[in-house]
């Protein structure tokens, strides 16, 4: 982890620690949404930003996680937080099964297939598949999470739970990017042919990125279910996936600070402009087009490692 990110994280922790004292319940709730979307976008970023795989059905993994939690906690009465790893596992397994046969498809075809996958999952949920999902009404009565015997119910309490998870995720995914696995993904994204040529099993790495991203989305699903206590298929429709995709692209694919900034902008700005609710999406579409023409890499683009003069000189001297 570099010094700047560490400082940014520290500043973030300090800011987050005091936020519930300064904000009212409404804005805390908005920030909770930002946290959830940041988590989801960070999880999609592993797939879309790091591995360069166009996945526009991410809401399906989110849905699998949320429904796993809802079913386990209402039917089997498992404590909500216990279902967190199970939700991640369920989403990961689901991703491994659905992604394997299509992962080799060309970029925009993968995009179309993942849209299709997301829609099939939504339709399955609406049709009350296996009699477990409650159909179009969804599931309700999901119990509150309990941390060390304390029941979490207020927005301020959820705030700490969600953002603690976001910070943990930022830390882990930053480590991941620096790791051998992360570097292999970068290589794969920048030049798949060369990556394959230098002995990277591209299919395995692509699949691993998909499974990891899905697992994290599944766990975000647990937090969502616990926060809402009620879930329905409409929370996981195509628009959710598009929104996550946009957060990653507009913020800066592959860049963790960019993705978080993207989540803040995409969630907070529409709240601040509630008065213009109807024209909101129109402007949104326009911004997407203009952004792509004038700032293709997103707001906070990923800095590519560059050789500087002194690095080169040092390498020369070492030889």
């Amino acid at each position, binding site marked *: 982890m570099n010094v700047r990110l560490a400082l940014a994280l520290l500043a973030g922790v300090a800011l987050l620690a005091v936020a519930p004292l300064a904000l009212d319940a409404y804005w805390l709730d908005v920030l909770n949404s930002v946290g959830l979307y940041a988590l989801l976008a960070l999880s999609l970023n592993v797939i879309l930003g790091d591995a360069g795989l166009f996945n526009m059905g991410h809401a399906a993994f989110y849905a699998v996680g949320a429904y796993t939690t809802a079913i386990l906690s209402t039917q089997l009465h498992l404590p909500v937080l216990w279902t967190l790893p199970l939700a991640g596992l369920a989403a990961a397994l689901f991703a491994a099964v659905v992604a394997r046969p299509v992962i080799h*498809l060309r970029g*925009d075809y993968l995009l179309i297939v993942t849209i299709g996958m997301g*829609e099939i999952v939504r339709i399955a949920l609406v049709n009350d598949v296996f009699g477990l999902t409650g159909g179009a009404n969804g599931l309700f009565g999901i119990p509150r999470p309990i941390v060390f015997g304390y029941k979490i119910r207020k927005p301020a309490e959820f705030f700490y739970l969600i953002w603690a998870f976001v910070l943990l995720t930022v830390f882990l995914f930053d480590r991941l990017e620096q790791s051998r696995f992360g570097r292999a993904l970068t290589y794969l994204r920048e030049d798949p042919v060369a990556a*394959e040529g230098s002995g990277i099993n591209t299919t395995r790495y692509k699949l691993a990125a998909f499974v990891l991203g899905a697992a994290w989305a599944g766990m975000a699903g647990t937090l969502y279910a616990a926060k809402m206590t009620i879930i329905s298929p409409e929370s996981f429709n195509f628009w959710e996936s*598009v929104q996550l995709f946009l957060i990653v692209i507009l913020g800066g694919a592959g860049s963790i600070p960019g993705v978080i900034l993207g989540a803040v902008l995409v969630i907070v700005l529409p709240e601040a402009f509630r008065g213009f609710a109807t024209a909101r999406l129109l402007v*949104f*579409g326009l911004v997407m*087009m203009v952004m*792509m023409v004038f700032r293709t890499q997103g707001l906070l683009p990923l800095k590519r490692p560059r050789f500087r003069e002194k690095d080169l000189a040092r390498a020369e001297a070492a030889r």
Partner: protein
Amino acid sequence: MEQFLQQLINGLAVGGIYALIALGYTMVYGVLKLINFAHGDLFTYGGYLGLTLLTSLALQGRVGTAAAVALLVLMVMGLVGVMGVVLERAAYRPLRESPRLSAVVSALGASIFLQNALMLLYGARVQVYPEGLLPQVAVSLFGLQVPLLRILVVLASVVMMAALYLFVQKTKIGTAVRAAAIDQGAARLMGIDVNKVVSLVFLIGPALGGVAGLLVGLYYGQVNFTMGWIYGMKAFTAAILGGIGNIPGAMVGGLLLGVIEALGAAYLSIAWKDAIAFCVLILILIVRPTGLLGERVAEKV
């Protein structure tokens, strides 16, 4: 048997509409290798413009005569075609040299923009086509009573596709389109103005999509501002099924998908109707990514 035939005819009618929209996807993909996500929304504009022209212009009360219908079709084609050309200039041409993802995101942005512009203009509610515009005649076919409109939809789509196919295969401009689809650089060296070809493709594709929107309005009697998305996805599936970049492929794929969907809804489950197309899409991409008659879409890395 009677139900089977009935579903077959329904499927062909809907399939004809899918095929008309699929042509726009397939042509744009053939030349630019871009999935034009906003194409489905241009189709919706066809339905809405058709409605406005029908209810607000002098056409009212006079539709039913062949000339008025032809005029309506031409006006919708022209307007939506021009929208397509403008869309390409604004959202896609500046990104011609950019990474693939940028154009995809821009296309999605255009789709969201167009859809919401329509909502702001007309309101979020379903728009109903006035009744009795076209004579409600049924024709006896294989011992079945089939509404004339349903047959007209199939005929209209087949005629338009045949015309397009002949245009692309037999005329000099059509040859330029095919050349640009194979190799833009080489086409440019041969003196073909690729920008003009792209504009032409974005004129014809959306024009046909616009007619499909008008046909949906006449066929179902209503349109809504979000319908472009699901029709667009299905038409795209049809294009893949037939083999993307291939005009007869789009036609075969569209008709086939319409029939599969109608039979699936009748014999399997109506609730899963919209999932059928997506299952077909995923299956075809796994099993035969070239489609029935087309180019490769899988990447060997």
